């Protein structure tokens, strides 16, 4: 085996399988949405002309943004706490964070059905205290999808951030505090800027995760609150509208890529600014 051709030889099987079973199938669902006797964007124009379709796309992007912001708000202090704990506690807490992450997403969504349902814990508690007379609608709402997705992806944000925060030298925080910064100021001026790269990586994971998640919107959102992934499934398997499913597929891929590119540009920019600072 000559060393010149061998790298190609050993990556070839994987390459062939990916081309045949990923690229070709993708091409075969997307091609018909772009070609109809000639290149056309008609399917996409009519997709965006329907306010119903646009509302689903908007809901998907909006909820993904909200979930990302919430996961930073709840994840960063928690990750900071974990990173600052002593070794024994830290590994225990990391185990606790990983546990939900490794638990099936159906189980995790089902947990929220028990809490938010008409007969769920929140409604029963509110009825028992007499605060409400009728059960309130919590399940099958955007709120349910938001909290379910946050539940799904918060551990991902925390594990990402702990890795980054562990590498921040605790002495610089102490230095800031010795120099008179209050803990909150020290956090904002020292920890926050240093954790931004981690926040960006975590945000990519949470944002794209929420954007493409299927189980949670299916179980907690219902048909009234579809997200792009459940909308794709409905078009493909219930309505048999493969054309529209292909359109949704490409929009999802493009949105995911735009979001990743955007976050990466942001990261590069912050890196550059940091570089200037050091120089």
């Amino acid at each position: 085996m000559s060393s010149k051709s061998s790298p190609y030889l050993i990556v070839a099987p994987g390459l062939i399988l990916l081309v045949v079973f990923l690229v070709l199938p993708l091409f075969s669902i997307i091609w018909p949405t772009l070609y109809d006797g000639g290149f056309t964007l008609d399917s996409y124009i009519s997709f965006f002309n329907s306010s119903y379709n646009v509302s689903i796309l908007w809901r998907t992007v909006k909820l993904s943004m909200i979930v990302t912001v919430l996961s930073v708000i709840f994840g960063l202090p928690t990750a900071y706490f974990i990173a600052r704990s002593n070794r024994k506690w830290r590994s225990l807490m990391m185990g606790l964070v990983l546990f939900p992450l490794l638990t099936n997403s159906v189980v995790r969504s089902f947990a929220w059905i028990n809490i938010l349902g008409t007969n769920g814990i929140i409604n029963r508690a509110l009825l028992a205290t007499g605060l409400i007379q009728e059960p309130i609608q919590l399940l099958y709402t955007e709120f349910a999808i938001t909290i379910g997705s946050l539940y799904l992806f918060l551990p991902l944000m925390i594990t990402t951030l702990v890795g980054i925060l562990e590498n921040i030298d605790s002495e610089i925080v102490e230095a800031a505090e010795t120099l008179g910064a209050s803990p909150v100021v020290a956090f904002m001026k020292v920890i926050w800027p240093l954790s931004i790269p981690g926040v960006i990586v975590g945000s990519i994971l949470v944002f794209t995760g929420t954007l493409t998640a299927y189980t949670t919107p299916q179980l907690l959102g219902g048909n009234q609150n579809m997200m792009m992934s459940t909308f794709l499934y409905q078009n493909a398997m219930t309505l048999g509208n493969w054309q529209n499913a292909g359109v949704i597929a490409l929009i999802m891929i493009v949105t995911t890529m735009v979001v990743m590119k955007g976050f990466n540009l942001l990261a590069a920019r912050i890196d550059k600014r940091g570089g200037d600072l050091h120089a």
Partner: protein
Amino acid sequence: MRKQKGLALFALLVFLFLFFPLLIIVVTSFGENPTIQFPIQGFTLDWYANVFRISGFINSFWLSLRVSLLATILALVIGVPAAYGLSRYNFKGRTVLKGFFLSPTIIPGVVVGFSLFQFIVIKLQLPIFQGLLLGHFLISLPYIIRVVGSSLEQLDFSIEEAAWTLGSTRLTAFFKVVLPNISSGIFASFMLAFINSFNNIPVSQFLSGPGITALPTNLMSYIEYNYDPTVSALSVLLMLGTILMMFLIEKTLGLASIS
């Protein structure tokens, strides 16, 4: 010091948020009422027995186990050499290929599922099982490439070259020197890919057929029509599975290696 207390309290609340919902599932799995209630009345193990009575669950468990194991092994067989080629050699198109091998993670699961459904099930008319296997192979491959790739990058390749100089063939050197040195990376990637494949919904949802349904897909459709503690009981069993996995990972590698 006050700051520390506030922070600890905040973290505690987040942990409560993470565990309270799962705790409710555990508690409701023992309730006697035929619908889920919290707090529960009475205590019974009937719902656990029910999981085993509903033959669909057991069948789909074995199917999921088979599909995930086979798909992950296939991804290892294809992915480990590919990861080796991508990190060991400097060749034209390496960066592009690396990105390409990780691309299944960028494509949303439902899109992978739908495209495979249309291509493999409808166009090629391959048996459902093979389609399901291919789908799970595709979602497993990036984990192998990424995790094995990063352990290869940390490997000092001079030991491999030493083996070559001492007369071993490239293949022998790979099996006797490289593989043992990245074994923990291989194990970590296997666990990650397996768990991910076993828990996957979107791809499996599209690639089910009569009698061929993955466990999570089966559970999901059960939830859409039923609301009884059988689901809680099955969920608890799945959580026990997660604990077993975490225990195995902790014993062999330490959990830190997969986060």
